[in-house]
């Protein structure tokens, strides 16, 4: 198999995108098939600003909704007086927990999160009431007029107090979401060398640009409701919303509003139930749109974690045993904490073979912001720890960082510490070697032209070349794809072929990843058509599952592919009957149906004229199992791998960093749309760089101090390194199209690679991300 059939050297993302688009258009007889990089159907509108994001939704006579939130991390609600709000002219509804007709709580795994707080508030920002009014200013005044009396309680902010049980439960379900142990092999095994340290990962925000927004339109008589919302999983939202509204699922109809990024933050319910309740209560359309500050409070984040690890190895650097203790702060409510924890404990060995392990992990409840899904889902935290450990181990064994990783690289057939055998293509070695083969930046510190903006400190002109030291660091990762632990994960697609046009219907949330592009490519390839129509993305077809876990290319791609194949069978049966040919002899070649054993050649457009072929397909991935009490079991579906090498320039005195280049080789199975893959790689690296050097939600005594983009910093163009990428294309036999998910791996090991490079530059032991200037300077 070819290790690297596509290589994209990307100096500037925009240029790369343009080049790739042009390359793929040249010489392709029918563009837009699998392997091409056609222009996104929503691309021009997004670039020109005419794309309707969910924040742009409106309806005749709609009301504005707004949410009253807790000012305290932990308090008992003594009383709520709504009379002041009701007295304001223009206020049409004021609702609290008392107004929730159905289930008072929601949640993806454990429904422990109140629609509105009733007895206690458990984090700053928890919804307490909501209003609907004729104007946002009226809403604001109404919220100010609601009187809530709180008995303020001491907040639980130290996760260790959940583990040791020393803090009284802050929720009837207790302060531990889940504890999972992994015990494998010889727990007493030791090696010649042992390295250990404790690592910390701060709370990262998904920071999508399109803020939470929804529009709910009630049915006449209030028998149902239609909700337009930016989400990652329409059907799961519907199910949770319907339960809270006490309506049957089919009475709640969801349509995807334009999504401006998600990264996991739209997997949980935020404003959905509130918007629907207000609409049903007032009988009028209601729109809620969060501000940036509210968005920080209103969605789940990446779990902060504290991870102790100890590696035992032979003097040649072969890992004998890994030990880990992982504590993840899940904040006030469960969300997906238990699944995030499982990902962390089962990935803490990294992409390295290891026979023996003792791992203990806790996901706990505190009075911090709730945490849940974010790109990388528990593996980001584990990877920062295991990759930091690999460098420590390399130093202890006198090996270089590449060599230690090659010596331990896992391969297909190896067992994980859960006992699960890796059945996927596992090109860990190739990822490392191909990354190492990519050119280091040829530019000296500060760039060829000596532009001081390219030094650490950038526009601040803080440094001269002589102050700067350069470093190189590595990160390699394993990431599970799709859902785990026995979940029957599936996606549905319906395909209609009529007059040479394929119409595709699915509920797959397009959150920017480009499934709307890929779906058309699949249909063109399988059905030989040029024209593909995408029907609205809504709940009038079966579930597609969540746009998360790097799963939609595999799952919804599998569903569209499956439905297209069923339709193609109908087409072949029809052509076979008309022309007296055995349908089994028919195939698609270009735009035609051809007889592989004869001369028959009928254009698809002609063969489908006046005909309608339609079918629906559900793609399920193979079953998985739960872990037993020793953390053993085939809990994951599939795996992907990636390597990153970072080059950074550091100003040791000021602690400022400029990431110069990230080289990466990623195991993608098959690049169905190379431009989209590069887009995921660059975007993921930006997020990984952000966690490495700047992105953190700061909470002090349970209060968020930086719920805005003045102080929650995201990388700018000047912070983004050049990205040089190689795609390792070894089609995975388990994947419907041979393609692995590519969304998460780029952000996982890019973070430890950057930190390792900083360590290399300054020789300091950095154990926490994001690395702050003071961590480097002192």
């Amino acid at each position, binding site marked *: 198999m070819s290790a690297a059939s596509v290589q994209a050297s990307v100096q500037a993302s925009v240029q790369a995108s343009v080049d790739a688009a042009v390359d793929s258009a040249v010489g392709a007889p029918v563009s837009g098939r699998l392997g091409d990089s056609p222009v996104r159907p929503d691309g021009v509108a997004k670039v020109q600003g005419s794309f309707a994001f969910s924040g742009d939704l409106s309806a005749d006579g709609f009301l504005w909704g707004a949410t009253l939130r807790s000012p305290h991390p932990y308090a008992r609600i003594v009383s709520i007086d709504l009379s002041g709000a009701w007295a304001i002219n223009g206020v049409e509804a004021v609702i609290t927990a008392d107004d929730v007709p159905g289930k008072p709580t929601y949640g993806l795994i454990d429904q422990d999160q109140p629609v509105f707080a009733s007895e206690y508030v458990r984090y700053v920002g928890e919804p307490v009431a909501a209003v609907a009014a004729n104007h946002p200013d009226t809403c604001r005044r109404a919220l100010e007029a609601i009187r809530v009396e709180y008995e303020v309680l001491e907040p639980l902010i130290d996760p260790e107090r959940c583990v040791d049980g020393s803090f009284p439960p802050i929720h009837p379900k207790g302060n531990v979401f889940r504890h999972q142990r992994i015990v494998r092999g010889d727990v007493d095994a030791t090696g010649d060398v042992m390295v250990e340290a404790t690592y910390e990962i701060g709370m990262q925000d998904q920071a999508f640009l399109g803020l939470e927004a929804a529009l709910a339109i009630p049915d006449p008589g209030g028998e149902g409701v239609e909700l337009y919302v930016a989400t990652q999983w329409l059907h799961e939202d519907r199910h949770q919303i319907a339960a809270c509204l006490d309506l049957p699922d089919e009475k709640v109809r969801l349509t995807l509003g334009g999504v401006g990024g998600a990264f996991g933050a739209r997997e949980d319910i935020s404003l959905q139930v509130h918007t629907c309740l207000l609409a049903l209560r007032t009988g009028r359309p209601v729109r809620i749109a969060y501000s940036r500050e509210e968005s920080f409070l209103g969605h789940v984040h990446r779990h902060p974690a504290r991870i102790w690890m100890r590696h035992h190895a032979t003097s040649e650097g072969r890992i004998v045993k890994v030990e880990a203790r992982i504590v993840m702060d899940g904040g006030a409510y469960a969300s997906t904490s238990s699944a995030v924890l499982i990902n962390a404990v089962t990935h803490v060995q990294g992409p390295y073979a290891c026979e023996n392990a003792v791992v203990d992990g806790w996901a706990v409840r505190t009075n911090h912001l709730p945490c849940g899904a974010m790109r990388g889902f528990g593996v980001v935290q584990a990877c920062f720890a295991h990759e930091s450990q690999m460098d420590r181990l390399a130093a202890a064994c006198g090996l270089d960082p590449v060599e230690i990783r090659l010596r331990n690289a896992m391969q297909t057939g190896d067992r994980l510490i859960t006992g699960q055998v890796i059945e996927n293509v596992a090109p860990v070695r190739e990822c490392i070697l191909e990354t190492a083969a990519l050119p280091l930046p040829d530019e000296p510190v500060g760039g060829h032209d000596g532009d001081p903006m390219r030094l650490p400190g950038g526009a*601040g002109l803080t440094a*001269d070349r002589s102050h700067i030291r350069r470093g190189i660091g590595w990160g390699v990762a394993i990431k599970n794809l799709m859902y785990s632990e026995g979940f029957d994960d599936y996606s549905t697609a319906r395909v209609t072929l009529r007059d040479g046009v394929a119409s595709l219907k699915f509920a797959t949330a397009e959150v920017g990843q480009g499934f709307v592009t890929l779906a058309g490519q699949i249909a063109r390839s399988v059905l030989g058509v040029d024209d593909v129509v995408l029907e609205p993305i809504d709940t009038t077809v079966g579930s597609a599952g969540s746009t998360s876990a790097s799963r939609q290319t595999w799952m919804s791609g599998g569903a569209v592919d499956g439905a297209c194949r069923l339709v193609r069978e109908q087409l072949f049966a029809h052509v076979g009957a008309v022309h007296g040919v055995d349908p089994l002899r028919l195939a698609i070649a270009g735009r035609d149906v051809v007889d592989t054993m004869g001369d028959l050649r009928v254009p698809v457009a002609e063969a489908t004229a006046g005909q309608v072929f339609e079918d629906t397909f559900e793609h399920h991935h193979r079953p998985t199992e739960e872990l037993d009490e020793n953390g053993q079991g085939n809990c994951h579906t599939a795996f992907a791998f990636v390597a990153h090498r970072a080059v950074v320039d550091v100003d*040791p*005195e*000021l602690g400022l960093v400029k990431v110069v280049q990230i080289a990466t080789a990623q195991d993608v199975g098959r690049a169905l749309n190379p431009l989209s893959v590069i887009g995921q790689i660059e975007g993921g690296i930006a997020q990984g760089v952000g966690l490495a050097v700047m992105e953190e939600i700061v909470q002090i005594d349970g209060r968020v101090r930086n719920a805005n983009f003045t102080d929650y910093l995201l990388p*700018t163009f*000047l912070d983004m390194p050049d990205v040089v990428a190689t795609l390792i294309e070894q089609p995975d036999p388990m994947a419907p199209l041979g393609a692995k998910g590519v969304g998460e791996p780029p952000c996982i090991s890019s973070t430890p690679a950057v930190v390792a490079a900083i360590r290399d530059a300054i020789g300091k032991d950095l154990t926490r991300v994001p690395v*702050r200037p003071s961590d480097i300077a002192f």
Partner: protein
Amino acid sequence: MSVTVALTLDEALTALATDPAATVLAGGTDLMVELNGGHRRAASVVAVNRVRELRSWRHDPAAGTLWLGAAVTYTEIAQEPIAALVPALAQAARTVGSPQIRNAATLGGNVGTASPAGDGLPVLAALDAVVHLASAGATRDVPFAEFATGPKRTVLQPGELITGVTVPVLHGYQGYSKVGVRNAMVIATASACLAVDVASRSVRFAMGSVGPVILRAPEAEAIAAAAADFDAGTIPSEVVERFGAAAGAAARPIDDHRSTAAYRRRAIEVLARRLLARAFPAGAPIGGDA
């Protein structure tokens, strides 16, 4: 909300005289953030960003001064011809936000907000700028050092407008450096301006984000002025060290969610050393490291 869009200085001052409680709006890059965030209310607004007089600037070579109207934007200040007259202010301007922000953000707005992190302000402090204020029927000049009385607090009276600032056009190196946690578009964790005036044989050093207002470092300035050879453009390298330490000692930083007092003081020491070494390159210690 009533909004008066003034086109002349008279119109602006008349509007403020009629309604002294009105809020002045220039580029709006501070004000709109505060209004949208609900941190500030404005019953009425007088917009001054189209006032001709405030949008202009004047170089008086005879007096050796530059007068900058309050509504001159940072985009203009970052470019020639203003950049050549006050290079440090141009450097500071280039660090303000993003190109879009700089197109709207004015020097008067930066002065009016009086944030200790305002990027233009350490330069104005180092240059001993004069702030010109006007109300209907009266004008007054306030030394920059007396203009801000605390974080976001100034001597500006209701009904009063900042019309501009005057800075000297000096001969000698001047530079501005800003430390933030991101390489662009970031609020200063610490910032510093160093300006040499060969004519008066002085070195001026001012610091941002390390006190309630912009601070000068008189002791450090004296150390540098005494040791520098202004004609040769050199300074003994051990003085660079002392200068940094004295500058750090003059800072009055605090701990907050953005950084720590210790880091901010360190940053000032480093910036002071590096700026002095840039001003007197021949005397800089090799490598510049401590």
